[in-house]
């Protein structure tokens, strides 16, 4: 069977607790569809996106992948949202020989799942240390550090490992490590421990709601020092939670709206026009995922018309092409190593600046 219309699958969490993150990814992907098709699609032929909801669990991700692979007959998949889901669903794509780009999977071991698995999300080990270095730049006197993380969240626990390592590497003292659950709301106990440890830097790995509450309660109860937030807090969704108290939180970024590339500037402009705010990282990464697929398809198409391919062959070819290419995305120029691990040049550190109770922005630090 030849490929008539090119369909790219997007499997992210549109329901469940994880939808908070998935929603931004949906926006990013939709945006890419509209924008890239507006610019001619794949050498003049528009492509289509097929969305399948993964929910927040493993079975949901597998089902979404299966549907995309056999029913929607996609050439490649951007997804899933969580690394834990990726460990369940990526092997499915791997066996079916369908290329996958993880848009937000930052855990260790994702590209190693197989030849067809790559990601556009830089692993924590690469991103997280930047924030600590930046904090030390802002306040060289920092000595004592408290680390807090959501222990029921896979990504937060792996991120905290990196943070803790960095703290040691930088010669700082790890005064206390506190755990919480993503479903927790009250952090008085943890905050108390932090305050008692008299630290001057707090590092939080969690998701938006719990992370935001933690920041809020830290401030309300009198913590004055610097706060670093991990990848899960890297969303404006945190603003309504800690409101004015979000001010000053430092977050390492794999993406910056300020990134100077032309690709990004156009993206940011269009995004702002439509959503009246800066694109968040998860949207940018999902966008990048779709863009990488599309550009790889374009390159293939130039060599041999896509509609002459068998779907199976196209998938294999696409995977090769993805790994071979170099892409000018809003994330900057990116490429992949042979395992499928992302090679990204620029990382950023931003600090939250709240304009009022609801609105704020990430201000990028040099």
């Amino acid at each position, binding site marked *: 069977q030849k490929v008539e219309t090119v369909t790219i699958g997007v499997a992210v969490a*549109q*329901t469940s607790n994880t939808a908070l993150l998935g929603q931004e990814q949906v926006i990013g992907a939709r945006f890419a569809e509209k924008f890239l098709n507006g610019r001619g699609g794949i050498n003049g032929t528009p492509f289509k996106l097929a*969305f*399948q*909801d993964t*929910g927040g*669990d*493993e*079975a949901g991700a*597998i*089902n979404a992948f*299966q*549907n995309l*692979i*056999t*029913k929607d007959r996609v050439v490649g998949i951007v997804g899933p949202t969580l*690394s*834990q889901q990726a*460990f*369940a*669903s*990526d*092997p*499915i794509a791997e*066996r*079916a020989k369908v290329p996958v780009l993880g848009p937000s999977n930052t*855990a260790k*071991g994702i590209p190693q*799942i197989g030849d067809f698995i790559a990601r556009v999300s830089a692993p924590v080990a690469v991103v997280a240390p930047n924030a600590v270095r930046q904090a030390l730049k802002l306040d060289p006197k920092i000595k004592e550090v408290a680390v807090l993380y959501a*222990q*029921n*969240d*896979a990504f*937060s*626990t*792996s991120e905290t490992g990196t943070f803790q390592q960095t703290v040691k590497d930088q010669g700082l003292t790890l005064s206390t490590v506190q755990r919480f659950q993503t479903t927790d709301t009250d952090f008085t106990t943890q905050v108390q421990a932090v305050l008692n440890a008299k630290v001057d830097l707090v590092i939080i790995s969690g998701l938006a709601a719990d992370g935001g509450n933690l920041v809020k309660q830290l401030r309300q109860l009198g913590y004055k020092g610097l706060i670093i937030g991990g990848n899960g807090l890297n969303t404006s969704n945190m603003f309504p939670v800690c409101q004015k108290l979000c001010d000053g939180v430092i977050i390492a970024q794999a993406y910056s709206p300020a990134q100077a590339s032309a690709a990004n500037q156009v993206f940011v402009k269009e995004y702002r026009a439509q959503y009246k705010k800066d694109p968040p990282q998860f949207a940018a990464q999902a966008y990048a995922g779709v863009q990488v697929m599309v550009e790889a398809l374009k390159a293939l198409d130039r060599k041999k018309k896509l509609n002459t391919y068998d779907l199976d062959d196209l998938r294999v070819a696409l995977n090769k092409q993805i790994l071979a290419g170099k892409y000018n995305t809003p994330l900057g120029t990116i490429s992949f190593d042979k395992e499928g691990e992302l090679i990204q040049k620029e990382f950023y550190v931003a600090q939250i600046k709240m304009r009022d109770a609801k609105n704020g922005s990430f201000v990028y630090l040099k």
Partner: protein
Amino acid sequence: MDDFLQTYGFLIATMLQAGLLGLSLYFPLQAGQLSLASPGFYAVGGYAAAIMLTNPAFAGLRDTLGNGMFPLTWLAGAVLGGLLGVIVGVPALRLRGIYLALATIAFVEILRVVALNLTVTGGAVGIFGIPQAFGFQDRWQYIFLFLPLLLLTLLFARQLERSRVGRALRAIREDELAADAMGVPPTQYKVLAFVIGAVLAGLVGAMSAPFLNTWNAKQGTFDASITILAAVLIGGSRNIWGPVVGGALLAAVPEVLRFLADWRLVINGLVLVVASLYLPQGIVGALERLGRPRPPQRPTSAPVSAAEVKS
């Protein structure tokens, strides 16, 4: 056909798996015990298999046994489930109704937190890269594991129901005190039913770890407990087919409703409401009502009691 299996094979296997988990809850329920511990045993079974299949400590064993490793993981899952079943069941079965349900949920939660904190279980990330049973390539091939197990379990359950032990369980469900007074020792049989469920759940867990490719603490949670219970009730809690039908259905509905896109979970919720309103005895219960029960047959060989005394 191939495409169908590719797309829905995983779902079908999940439906069978859900049916099995439903049955694991059904056994204690037969003795009137509302135990929601199944996801705990399921998680433990899964961890046992995942560890045995990935941990370097078992590398030698894996090399020696080859595919024989998989049945061994099943055995391990079942035995661990059973052992834990005894440990939890003996104290917990003094409780009744919702109290028992909550005590078993407490057990599930404790296990979950422990799994999050251990290194062998891979902490919150869990264990991934689990090798495939018998080199299975596709999810649907797991039907070859779950279906025979389901059939065996059904057969077991049916035979159990018709036996002296099955009667004892029913008696306890109906009236524990009266059962006791009529010579049925309640504790012993309650623990038995509980352990049967635990063994089954552990076994299913062990089969499920390769099936899902990965295993983590989210596999045994409160939500799972409630979903399984809902499946049993929707299917019908008084007939062995109930948990199977309910489990399969509840696993299938959200997938079947995929075409509704954003509305699918809303509709899924409505399905649950409507089903519980219109099928108060569950689906199988409703079907049973259609066919009126066959009156019991007098054993043919029975000598008609000579001294028939009318009271």
